[in-house]
């Protein structure tokens, strides 16, 4: 094909549909969904798996593994294998509480935390970007080309720093972020649009380690988040832990070795999962001490020992309803999100509390990604292609935003749960005679004192003409864009002097750090290319293995024993090298297999030609 010079940035040749995807970047696992045929579907990896464990490992040879392949390293190589990085996004060391609870080595910094790994210091943005890259690669393989845009979901309680960090991670992974979307809102999108239901809904999201509840109003074509609440330290893991404690109590075991704790937690988790479908679950394990554990956990006992955990989820639910000024009777439906909502006692408790059974017809692990995919599809401009209605999406601020005033108090400008995008302004004045400058300190939080809230930004408005105290009129405007990112500006009304700040959340990354990371990604272009070549070759090898095995099963009789042995040997070698990281060896093996099967392919061709010709006269064949 011969190419012509095109104008820069001229759009790609028109195609019917743009490639958009929704990404649920989760604490324990992440996944990606899209709407390739106008229907939201989750995308699987080459082994058919939907959930990608949110685990990243930095290996000895500079290799980076993500997901299932990184999981086994959690125990063996903890310092270089990072799990639950979402908890670190946009956080400083002081935000973490006791940083020793994590098995990582921390670098001493004042900004966002940095982890010391064998490939140098890594921040949570860079680590999350690796997870996003894996999902991007998966989506591009499945959708057959580069993504035009993605929607990434974040918990409703994420503050500016955490949102900014998520956006930067996506940017670093080479993704075009159309917008960030609150997870409960995404779940409502998945249900609301699929079913065309209107009314007030509650999204009850119990994940591995966090609980969130949101109240949303779906009315003709519009989604509006009325209130959000949650508990960032309550999740399915706590239920495992309860079962674990129950095992200890029931057996009276002495203090356990670390590996036995892990073993029993795994046993506890599988018992929990069994009880989602059965009335009883066996609890059996053999400890490193030779101790045997053999118990049976009934659904009733499980409900009993976890009752207070289930009750604990209802407190934020009540608070959210109060914030939204709603009574139970006004709730039209309850959406369950998160794998932990598969537990029957949760479904029952939710049903009893709301006096109606919850909506469960979408997979609770996938519903957020599906909603994000629907939104991405609309934002990228595919909406007109599907028969969907035109719709808007209103989101809310997770926490109030305000300014520091005299005495270290907070003047709230934007209340929590205000719909976004928004613009709010308020007038302030000077405190002293002849005051020519005003320091503006933007804070986020619900408390009254600045010291108890989170500091987002500071800037100064200078050049105010000297006036008596109280005469200047300074208008301060808060603006939040559709991604939940904030800009604040101040303007003295009589003279028009202005100052403004785009909120660099205190623990966000500076431009220079972003630039450094982008430069690094350029410096790694060669490695990326090799990684790409390897993956492509691996996919090719998989295809060849599958095709050949299929052919052998169908037409194996065409081969004599020696020929068959040669092909089997080539296939075995290929399958083995497919697992390795050696590109050249794999290519050689691929070529060898191709050669070994060439004769076989020829004979199959002959046979099928013969079949087609059998029973036909030569002249009729020619006429065909």
């Amino acid at each position, binding site marked *: *094909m*011969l*190419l*012509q*010079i*095109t*104008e*820069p*940035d*001229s759009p*790609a040749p028109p195609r019917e549909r743009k490639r958009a995807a929704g990404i649920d970047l989760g604490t324990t696992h992440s996944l990606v969904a899209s709407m390739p045929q106008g229907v939201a579907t989750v995308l699987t990896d080459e082994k058919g798996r939907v959930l990608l464990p949110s685990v990243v490992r930095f290996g000895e040879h500079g290799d980076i593994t993500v997901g299932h392949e990184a999981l086994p390293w959690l125990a063996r190589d903890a310092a270089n294998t990072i799990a639950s990085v979402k908890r670190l996004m946009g956080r400083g060391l002081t935000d973490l509480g006791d940083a020793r609870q994590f098995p990582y080595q921390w670098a001493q910094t004042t900004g966002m935390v940095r982890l010391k790994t064998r490939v140098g210091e890594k921040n949570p943005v860079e680590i999350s970007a690796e997870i996003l890259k894996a999902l991007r690669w998966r989506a*591009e393989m499945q959708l*057959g*080309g*580069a993504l035009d845009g993605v929607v990434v979901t974040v918990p409703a309680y994420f503050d500016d720093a955490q949102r900014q960090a998520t956006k930067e991670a996506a940017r670093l992974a080479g993704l075009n972020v159309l917008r960030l979307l609150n997870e409960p809102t995404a779940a409502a999108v998945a249900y609301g649009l699929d079913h065309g239901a209107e009314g007030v809904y509650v999204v009850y999201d119990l994940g591995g380690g966090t609980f969130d509840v949101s109240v949303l109003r779906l009315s003709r074509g519009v989604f509006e988040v009325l209130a959000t609440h949650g508990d960032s330290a309550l999740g399915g893991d706590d239920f495992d832990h309860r079962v674990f404690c129950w095992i200890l109590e029931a057996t009276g075991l002495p203090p356990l070795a670390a590996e036995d704790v892990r073993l029993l937690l795994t046993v506890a988790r599988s018992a929990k999962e069994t009880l989602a479908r059965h009335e009883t679950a066996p609890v059996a394990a053999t400890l490193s001490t030779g101790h045997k554990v053999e118990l049976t956990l009934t659904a009733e006992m499980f409900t009993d020992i976890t009752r207070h955990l289930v009750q604990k989820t209802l407190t934020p639910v009540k608070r959210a309803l109060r914030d939204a000024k709603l009574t139970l009777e006004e709730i039209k439906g309850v959406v369950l999100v998160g794998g932990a909502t598969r537990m029957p006692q949760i479904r029952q408790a939710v049903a009893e509390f709301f006096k109606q059974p919850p909506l469960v017809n979408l997979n609770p692990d996938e519903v957020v990604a599906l909603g994000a995919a629907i939104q991405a599809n609309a934002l990228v401009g595919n909406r007109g292609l599907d028969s969907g209605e035109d719709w808007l999406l209103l989101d809310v601020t997770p926490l109030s935003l305000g300014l520091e005033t005299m005495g270290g108090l907070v003047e709230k400008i934007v209340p929590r749960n205000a719909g976004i995008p928004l613009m709010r302004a308020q007038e302030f004045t000077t405190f002293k005679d002849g005051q020519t400058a005003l320091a503006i300190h933007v804070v986020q939080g619900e408390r009254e004192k600045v010291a108890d809230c989170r500091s987002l930004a500071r800037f100064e408005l200078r050049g105010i003409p000297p006036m008596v105290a109280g005469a200047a009129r300074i208008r301060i405007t808060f603006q939040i864009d559709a991604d939940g990112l904030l800009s604040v500006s101040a303007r003295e009304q009589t003279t028009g002097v202005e100052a403004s700040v785009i909120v660099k959340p205190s623990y966000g990354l500076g431009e220079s750090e972003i630039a450094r990371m982008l430069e690094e990604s*350029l410096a790694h*272009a*060669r490695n*990326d*290319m090799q990684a*790409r*070549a390897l993956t*492509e070759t691996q996919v090719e090898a998989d295809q060849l293995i599958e095709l050949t095995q299929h052919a052998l099963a169908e037409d194996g009789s065409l081969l004599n024993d020696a020929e068959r042995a040669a092909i089997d040997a080539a296939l075995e070698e290929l399958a083995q090298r497919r697992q390795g990281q050696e590109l050249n060896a794999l290519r050689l093996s691929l070529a060898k297999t191709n050669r070994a099967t060439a004769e076989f392919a020829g004979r199959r061709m002959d046979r099928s030609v013969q079949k087609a010709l059998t029973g036909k006269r030569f002249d009729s064949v020619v006429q065909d």
Partner: protein
Amino acid sequence: MTIQLTPSAVKHIQASLSKRGKGIGLRLGVRTSGCSGLAYKIEYADEMRPEDVSFESDGVTVIVDKKSLPYLNGTQLDYRREGLNEGFKFENPNVKSQCGCGESFNV
């Protein structure tokens, strides 16, 4: 790292640029697309960007972004006539395979 232009490519690029009336050179790159993984990009360049590298070949400035460079290193760009068509052809030593139509390729 090099990218070369054949004399006929140089001639055609210079003619195209002067006909267009603006532009500092030719931008080459790769993007993920097509049925076989990657596709070439060939555009007029109006500016150098921070991530760009440039080459001179017989008075023509060729600009390539660093991400694309490894895929294009050693490439010779030719302008030729094939049957009734005329256009640019990449002779790229990095290419391992191409899809049938030649729009996209693999490394």
